[in-house]
């Protein structure tokens, strides 16, 4: 049966903040835009973002874009590209004010200006003092942003395809992207979206880990699509952990807990952070606290019958303080750990929170790959934005509030680039013959499967393996072992079986297709991590510790470079970090201390 062909100027895959900021820009310019989404747009994972949008408005204290630029370069542990970071920090106030004019309900100061709150890692005068830079809508910034963007998109006639799962990129004989295939869940039919450009805005792949703060929808679909289409994934070894996710649930306990005086204890009741960070103790930076917790667990001092978690103790704060200042923590303890935090400690573990790597792009959102000796050769017709992309502004470690900023700045920039390059007047390149065959064959294999494992069983094994071998505490031997294990799981994932072979709303088939995407993200992460023989940002390896030659284990001479992982052949390549900003002096690398 021939596939239905939908024809649009642009097809955006994913309806989170990045996708909808981009689609809005395109729709306002009069382009025909389709947005494909697995779930209703306002239920995308952007809704979970609480903190705010980083922008140097200077509403509370002196601030400017260059301070923000410095903080972000330093935060990235000098793996971020300084041209992209300059672009983002310069654009930040503009995208915030635009959002304000669209109706975003930011918190306000008495004088009517946007209220800004302080956030870890953001400073004035190059680290001299903290500066309030986060523009927020209470603790529901992501929610407010999604609603603002969705309403504006509807007003500008963006066409949403809800409960559609994008499957594969369509590339022609010249390698240009000319469309995408997608599965309509309600009918089980595969359709072709023929487009002048495709934009991947599918978010991260946080569900490759067993302990994750990410929603179940975060299965790295855009990463899988890119990897299968021969496009490398960049810097996938870098994942940000949050120290206090609830054990066996992943739900996040705010950093405010430790700010209010909560203490991390091992099975002996010891306040172990005093040993690792005598001055800052439990208030040391996120990545540092996470690694200490993992070390306690690995050295046999974890709590509980399996010794696999750390106890976060708030009991000394008293019920009144907890209920007044940390009511959501009390609520989460009760509902997800069966613990009354007023009376007893709550089990926590370092938990995956954010993916720094992704599909490699330039500052316009265009996907770039090495070709003919050029590290950043453009793939015509393909863009990536938001957490799915690696532009790279976060480098080896992301600063809080820079994720919402990233998706706004680069979602808008990708839209503007397409408008500036006169997308409207261009014609569609022809679709290759049998453009949907590859996707149909993948589904056919699933439909004819028998005797294999169920998708969720394989996915659960993958998550456990990734947690053990690519978690917050890494050793070279464990990562090497993890590569073998993940590749073995990949073989199992090629032989999945479906209980249900029906077409209409077959969630088993959808989950099997998601597992294929999770596998690509997991292989990229594990292989890239095992290959990087240094410690940098979130990738901290016990074997590569602090030495005079390599402070904090970072080896700039050999490893100040971006990893590129290719699915085909499971091979790696590297490209240089861009240390040259657009207009200002470079921030030279120094030891990252706080």
């Amino acid at each position, binding site marked *: 049966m021939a596939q239905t062909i939908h024809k649009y100027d642009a097809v955006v895959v994913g309806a989170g903040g990045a996708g909808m900021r981009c689609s809005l820009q395109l729709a306002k310019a009069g382009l025909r835009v389709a947005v494909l989404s*697995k*779930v209703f747009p*306002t*239920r*995308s*994972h*952007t*809704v*979970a973002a609480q903190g705010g949008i980083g922008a140097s408005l200077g509403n509370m204290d002196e601030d400017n874009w260059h301070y923000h630029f410095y903080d972000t370069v330093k935060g990235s542990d000098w793996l971020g590209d300084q041209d992209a970071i300059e672009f983002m920090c310069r654009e930040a106030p503009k995208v915030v004010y635009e959002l304000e004019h669209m109706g975003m309900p930011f918190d306000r100061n008495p004088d009517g200006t946007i209220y800004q709150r302080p956030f870890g890692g953001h400073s004035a005068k190059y680290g001299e003092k903290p500066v309030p830079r986060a523009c927020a809508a209470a603790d*529901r910034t992501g*929610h407010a942003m999604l*609603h603002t963007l969705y309403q504006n998109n509807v007003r500008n006639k963006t066409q949403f395809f809800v*409960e559609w799962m994008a499957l594969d990129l369509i590339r022609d004989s010249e390698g240009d992207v000319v469309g995408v295939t997608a599965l309509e*869940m309600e009918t089980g039919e595969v359709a072709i979206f023929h487009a002048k450009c495709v934009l991947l805005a599918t978010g991260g792949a946080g569900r490759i880990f067993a302990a*994750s*703060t*990410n*929603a*179940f*929808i975060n299965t790295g679909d855009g990463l899988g699509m890119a990897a299968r289409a021969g496009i490398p994934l960049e810097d996938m070894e870098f994942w940000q952990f949050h120290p206090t996710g609830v054990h066996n*649930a*992943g*739900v*996040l306990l705010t950093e405010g807990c430790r700010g209010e005086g909560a203490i991390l204890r091992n099975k002996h009741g010891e306040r172990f952070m005093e040993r690792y960070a005598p001055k800052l103790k439990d208030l040391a930076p996120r990545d540092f606290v996470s690694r200490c917790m993992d070390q306690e667990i690995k050295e046999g001092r974890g709590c509980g019958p399996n010794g696999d978690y750390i106890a976060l103790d708030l009991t000394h704060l008293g019920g009144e303080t907890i209920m007044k200042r940390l009511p959501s923590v009390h*609520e*989460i303890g*009760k*509902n*997800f750990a*069966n613990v009354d935090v007023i009376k007893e400690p709550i089990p926590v573990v370092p938990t995956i929170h954010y993916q720094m790597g992704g599909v490699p792009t330039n500052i316009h959102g265009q996907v770039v790959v090495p070709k003919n000796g050029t590290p950043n050769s453009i793939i015509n017709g393909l863009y990536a934005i938001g957490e799915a992309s690696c532009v790279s502004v976060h480098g080896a470690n992301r600063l809080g509030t820079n994720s919402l900023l990233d998706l706004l700045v680069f979602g808008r920039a990708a839209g503007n680039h397409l408008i500036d390059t006169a997308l409207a007047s261009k014609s569609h390149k022809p679709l290759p013959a049998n453009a949907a065959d590859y996707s149909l064959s993948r589904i056919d294999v699933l439909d004819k499967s028998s005797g294999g494992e169920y998708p969720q069983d394989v996915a659960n094994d993958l998550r456990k393996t990734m947690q053990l071998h690519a978690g917050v505490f890494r050793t070279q031997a464990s990562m090497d072992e993890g590569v073998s294990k993940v590749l073995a799981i990949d073989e199992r994932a090629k032989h999945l079986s479906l209980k*249900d072979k*029906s077409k*209409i*709303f*077959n*969630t088993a088939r*959808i989950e099997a297709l998601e597992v294929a995407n999770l596998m690509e993200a997991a292989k990229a992460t594990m292989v890239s991590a095992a290959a990087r023989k240094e410690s940098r940002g979130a990738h901290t390896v016990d074997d590569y510790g602090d030495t005079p030659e390599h402070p904090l284990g970072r080896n700039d001479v050999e490893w100040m470079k971006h990893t590129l992982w290719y699915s085909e052949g499971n091979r790696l390549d590297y490209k240089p970090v861009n240390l040259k900003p657009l207009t200002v002096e470079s921030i030279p690398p120094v030891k990252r201390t706080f």
Partner: protein
Amino acid sequence: MLSDVDLSRLRWRCRRGFLENDLVLERLLSARGNQFTDDEHTQLKTLLELDDNALWDIIAGRTNEFPADTRPMVQTLRDTLTKH
């Protein structure tokens, strides 16, 4: 009892934007399988139309403002959250 297709559709719409809702709804589906009456199914579908924050506020008991005819399912979800 729900048909296979209705259960699949429901299962998918229980995929939410943040983890707290995912976990509660997963618990409910694990406990109940396809054992929902027509009324319960209708009530749950109504609640799933809400935004994630609105849904979570109701489930967590932060608000008692919810569609009146969904009260029994709201209680079921609250019980699912707290009794585990």
